[in-house]
Every structure is written in C-alpha cells, then in structure tokens.
C-alpha cells in the first residue's frame, strides 16, 4: 500500500516537473521581451505607437505606427475570412456521418498545418499571377493585386483555417454521445443540433479562435509575397486594401535582422506590442469563455 502511495506521489511530481520545464522557456521569453521592449516604448511614449520607423543608424527612437495599423487590418480581415469557413466546415464534417467530403476536409486540414507557411505565401502569389493572366486574356482586371492587404489576408486566412478547424472539430467530436442522442431525439435538424453543440463547446470555440488569431498575429513568412509590407503610412483611403501594407511581424523581422542599433531597439518595442496584443486577446477570450481552467 505504501509503495503505491509513494509511486503515486512520485508520478504526480514527475508530471508537475514536466509542466515546469515546459513553462520555463515561456516565462523567460516573456521576461526578456518585456524588459527590452518596455524601455524602448517608454523612451518615446506615446509616439512609439503612431510614428513611423526611425532612420537607420541614428539616435532616433521613432515608432511602429504603420505596422500596428497593418497588423490590425490584416488579422481582422483574415479572421473574417477564416472563421466562417473553418467553423462551417467543422460542423459539416462532424455532423454528416460517413461523408467523403467531411473525411477529406478533416484529413486535408491536418495536412495543411504542415505546409511551411512561406509556401502558402508563394502559392497565393502564384495563384493570383495565374488569375491575372487568365482574367487578362478575357479583358478583365484582377480585383486582387498580388501585393496587397487583401492577398495578405487571404494567405493569413489559409494559415489560420486548419488551426481553428482542427480545434473545433475535435471539440465537436468530444461532445458526449448521450447529449448528442438527446439533442437528436428531440427531432432537431442537423443544423439546429450543431448550434446547440457549438454552444456546449463554446469554450473550445473561443480557444480555437484565440489560437488561430494568435497564429496569424505571429506569422511573417506568408506575408513576404502577399501583403509585401510597408514601412511608411500608405495613403489611408478606400483603396488601402488593394495596396501593400505593413505588419508588426514583417517590421520586427526586417529591423531585428538589420545591423542598426536603433532599428533593433525598435524591433524589441514592436515585439512587446505584439506580445501585449496576444496577451490581451487571450485574457479576453478567457473572460468570454466563462470557464475556469
């Protein structure tokens, strides 16, 4: 009996240790970003949030305004595109039993996660180029320019879809069978049953969205040949979505890899802003989901 208790305590201790190991790097990272980033933002507050980036090799602090604007536009557009597709597809795949299409989506989305995200960007560019040519042949103009906020949002949406989809599909599949049977026994249509189940797994849906958006916020590679980037404020008007646009990640990537001190400092500030947006997003999602775990 004693050895069993001992083994139990030991086993649980191992679990706890594994948790600590997996959480430590995150703490370390957040601490590093916070320490480096906060001093930069403080040195030009609040200008850092709306100014353009400084000239390289000077003492200017500048700001990351165009990047913040771009990230907000890109990620919200991508979310608007990706969320309905991912949710509808997940509902269809789980509620239509033995459907080949459901099986295909379920398998293909999981394989989609494996695309290196740069490939998504290259493919969107390639697809739009072909579209250009095809539409050009019949005398039309491609509505989506290759380097534009729209094509960037499409690339980001393609990256997001599998992350949202798999979480929701998994959630729907884990609805207890008794509940499922109870719902259908009331004579509900499949769509009504789906809505009830979606309400049941509300927390999962919100987590899925948060992970999807978090993923989109942190992506650099798919934007290279789509959103393209912009370091200065573009003219702000209705045509904005059809012109190149910047993003925090592209800004961080370019500035961190440059050799100039003030750019590297600005990239730490931008990293802190990006991280803060993610943290806020997660806290809000927790509050929304009303669940305590």
């Amino acid at each position: 009996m004693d050895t069993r208790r001992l083994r139990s305590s030991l086993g649980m201790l191992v679990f706890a240790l594994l948790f600590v190991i997996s959480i430590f790097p995150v703490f370390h990272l957040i601490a590093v970003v916070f320490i480096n980033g906060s001093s930069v933002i403080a040195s030009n507050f609040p200008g850092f949030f709306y100014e353009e980036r400084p000239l390289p090799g000077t003492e200017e602090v500048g700001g990351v305004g165009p990047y913040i604007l771009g990230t907000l536009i890109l990620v919200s557009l991508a979310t608007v595109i990706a969320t309905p597709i991912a949710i509808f597809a997940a509902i269809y795949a789980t509620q239509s039993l033995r459907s080949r299409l459901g099986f295909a989506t379920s398998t293909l989305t999981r394989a989609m996660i494996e695309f290196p995200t740069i490939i998504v960007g290259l493919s969107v560019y390639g697809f739009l180029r072909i579209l250009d040519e095809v539409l050009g042949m019949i005398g039309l103009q491609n509505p989506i320019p290759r380097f534009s906020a729209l094509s960037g949002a499409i690339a980001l949406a393609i990256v997001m879809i599998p992350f949202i989809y798999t979480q929701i599909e998994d959630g729907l599949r884990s609805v207890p069978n008794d509940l499922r049977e109870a719902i259908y026994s009331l004579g509900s249509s499949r769509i009504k049953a789906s809505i009830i189940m979606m309400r049941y797994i509300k927390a999962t849906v919100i987590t899925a969205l948060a992970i999807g958006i978090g993923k989109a916020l942190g992506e650099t590679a798919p934007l290279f040949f789509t959103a393209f980037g912009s370091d200065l404020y573009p003219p702000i008007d209705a045509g904005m979505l059809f012109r190149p646009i910047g993003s925090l990640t592209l800004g961080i990537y370019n500035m961190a890899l440059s050799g100039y001190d003030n750019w590297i400092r600005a990239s730490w500030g931008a990293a802190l802003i990006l991280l803060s947006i993610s943290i806020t997003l997660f806290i809000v999602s927790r509050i929304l989901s009303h669940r305590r775990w």
Partner: protein
Amino acid sequence: MLKKIIPIGILIAIIIIGAVALFMYKPWGGVGVPTQPTDTRNTAVTATATTTTSSGMIVLTFTYEDLSVKAEIPRKEVLITGGGSTFVNPQMQAWAQKFRSVSGGYVTVNYQSIGSGAGEAKWFDKALDFGASDVPISKTTYDRLISRKASFIQIPLIAGAVGIIYNIPEWDESKCGPLRLSGDVIADIYLGKILYWDDDRIKMQQVEECRSLLPHEIIRGIHRSDGSGTTALFTLYLSTVSSEWKTRVGTGYTVEWPRDAMGYGEGARGNEGVSAKVKGTKYSIGYVEYSYAVANKIPMAALKNKDGFYIVPSAEAVMEALKRGAKDLPPPSSFWGDVPATLINREGEKTYPIVGMVYAFIYTDIVSDIVSNKDLAAALSAFFKWVLTEGQKPENIVTGYVPLPKELAAKAIKYIEDYLKY
C-alpha cells in the same frame, strides 16, 4: 443529396460571380484619392522648387558636386513599389523617408527587402515598379526580356563591400593591427586546403613579431546559409583570385562549401547570424557586409589587393575601386553580367578588393501600359535622379554605405533622362 447540392451550388456560384463582376467594375487599384498633403519640404535640402503651369508638376533641381539635374514631381499622391536586395534596405528606407519630404509629401516609395533574386523576378512579373539587386539582371531574365521586346534600363544606385571577420583570442589587435589575408589563402581556407591558423601561408603575411601569435587550431569557416548577394560578391572575388575555386565551387547566391563537407565549416542566417557565430566561436572566420560590420563596429581583416597592398575596408578604399572599375558602364539595356567583375580585385595603393554595387531595374515603357502611369514614370524618374544626386551626399548616406563617384552618377542620370520618357 447531390440533387440538393447542385441547385444551391448554382445559386451560390451566380452570387459569387455577380459579386466579383461588380467588384471589377469599380477597380480600386493604383493610387488612391489624391489628398492635399501638408507641405513638409525639408529646407535643409538644397533643392529649389518652381512650378511650371503647363504640366502641373513641381520642378525641382538636384545637385551632386558639380552635377545639376532638373526633375518633375506630379502634384498627386504617387506610390512607388520597389523590392529586392536586402543589402540596400536600410539605405533605401532612409532615401524613401527623405524623398517623401523633398517631394512635398506627394511621392511615397515603399521598398521591401524580399531578396535580390526575388526582386528581379517580381519586377520581371511587373508586380514591382522597380527591382533592386546586388547583381545586374541575370542571363535568363535578360533573354526573356529581349524575347518579350521589353524596354528597360538598369542603373547603379550605391556601393558596398564585403569584409572578412575573424575570432582568434590570441591575436592582439592593438599590437599587430588587423589580421592580414590574401584572396588565394581565403579561397584555400574555404576549400579546406588550409586547415590551421598557424599555416605558413597565413603566418608569412603577418608582421614578423606577430607570427607566433597564430595558434595551431583548426579554422572554423562560417558562411551565409541563406541565399544572398553578399555570398555572390564574396564568391565572385574568390573565383577571380583562385582558379580552383572557380572550377570547383563557382559564383552564386548559394554555393556548396567544400569546408562544410569536411566538418570544419558551417552556415549561418544573415549578417547577424554570421557575426554572432564568429563572435561565439573561437578560431573562426566569416564574411559580412561592410555596412553591417561598420554599424556594429566589428573589426575586419586587411586584404591583399592586386598590387600587393594590405587594405582594411573603408569608404575611401571602396571609392578607389569604383573609380577604376565602373568607368565604362555598358548601355543600360545591354547585358550587364560582366559589370560586377570590373570592380573586383582592382589595382591601386588604397584599393579594397571586394567591392560591389546595387543595381535598380526599371521598365521604360510603363506609360503605355496602364492609364495613370505618366505620374508613376515621372515620380520614378524624379526619385532616382534625387538618389543619384542629393542621395549620394553624406547627410543622406547611412553609415557603412559608399556613395557612387560623380562620373558614375552622371552616367546613370543620363540613362534615366534618355530612356525613361513620360
């Protein structure tokens, strides 16, 4: 089930097609609604502005030494999209920012460092208004341009160099100065033929009292792992000075490194990756862009030039090579593949041997392409004229970049004036 899907599918298809058609009926592309920008013209810039009434353009005069050029800027917001070379990015951003205020806020240049190869390809695709690359237009692209009967020009914008960095803890720089190396030795290090730092061929190049400082340690050869113009320039130099390098490895954005195969070499991503690895690895050698090394105050080795002088890279040493090499720029629409080699390993008492330029590619027939492009062509012309004059002055040059000699700038400006009509 299929019967139910088909009618719904058709309905949806009609809706989508309708939406797309509506969308295209009202194309948003190009530059947005012109708004009146606040006049933020930089008074420190020597440009003077007068307005011509006929074309509604702002006329500015730009100068560089005794050069003086007139340029016209449209009174409309114009967005120029350019991309390519990572090397030129910090300098290009500085130019873009300053030129916007010079143009009275009308012209915004959006440049992104997507890589030289991608810059060339995306410019060829006409996704970019101009491409910038560490090498001139490649043979493949050139042939395709010719077969497409495209009219285009290529011009140099700014110069740079590649510096050799090293990490030998025993080496006392205050006493011995920078390490001295020659091209054939560097080639043999990366070829794996010279293994140790105390190899006679390295030793004999140093001043006598410092020779014994070189340790019997294996040299760790660090190189760029990502495709880069820096590697292209560096391998072009090695191919110039070592025939074995030329035949066994060659010149390119990425090559196969013989030293890697022996286990004494390693790749790193970007200039910062190479410099971090050299800093963190005892007995290593690497190469980075001169501008990067200057901005980060990394000491560089002195290289033996064609006349046998050991030269540490500096703006003057690079300028010497430019003056000698780029005297005869070929016509702008001919094949420029041989231009970079003319700057490499030049003679002279103060000439640094690994020097290169950044080239911009511009289509000159853009006006006939789409309606509103007269403004774009004018803006492009004005921007590059500014870059080649005011842009070459010390106050507009970012630390570590080397301006073009006046003669070269004058030639490039002539190409713009002669070919880029609007």
